[in-house]
């Protein structure tokens, strides 16, 4: 497998582990699809079915994936190391 086809490693903030598990229970399939997307093409809008947003202003570099209508995952991507850092998981009110 060439480096550009290598999957991304997903790193989750330890304090978010419970949020991730809760979201897994709540959305199961949708969070699995999110995980697959983050591993394979975390910056590709065309493959996100409209779920990927690239934040602007002071949040430049942060990406948002809409797991459901309310649930979101915010992350940043280290392309060189091929790592996705999940910075927050939560719901929009």
């Amino acid at each position: 497998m060439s480096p550009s086809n290598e999957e991304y490693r997903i790193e989750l903030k330890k304090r978010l582990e419970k949020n991730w598990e809760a979201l897994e229970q709540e959305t199961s399939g949708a969070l699995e699809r999110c995980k697959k997307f983050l591993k394979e093409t975390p910056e590709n809008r065309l493959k996100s079915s409209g779920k990927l947003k690239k934040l602007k202003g002071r949040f430049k570099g942060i990406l948002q994936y809409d797991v459901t209508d309310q649930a979101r995952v915010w992350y940043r991507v280290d392309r060189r190391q091929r790592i996705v850092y999940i910075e927050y998981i939560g719901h929009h009110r």
Partner: protein
Amino acid sequence: MASTVFSDFIVNATDLRKNQKHWLEKAYDNPITITYGRKKLAIMSREQVGKLYTEKYYAELVLKACQEFTKEKKSDTFPWMEYLSDDEKMQFHSEILNCAMKSIITGDWTQLEYLIQDWEATAETERNPEIVKMLQDKGTPEEYVTLK
């Protein structure tokens, strides 16, 4: 007397009836105008009509947003703008204008749609202080765990 629009051909209804195939073929590439008494009708490809409607929709959207911006009133077009800081509002305003200019030239409005979605997501994030705090707090490598 009909005046030309988009360099179209002007044909009367009788000519159209006589040479239907010819004029319909022509209409696919360039609009043609049919004069029918005092009435004027146009025949053009569906894709071209779609393109014109899309351009009109986005042009109106951007103009309305810019008008609201210059009047410094709360935006009806993008109500979520109220959660952006003044600097971010300026940046959004400048980006939406530049992007619309490019879209007019290229005919591709996808980038403008993405830009609006990105700014809306940014505003939604700004609205929630808990999320803002977490996103500003960049963790050290020890604070992360690899997801299986």
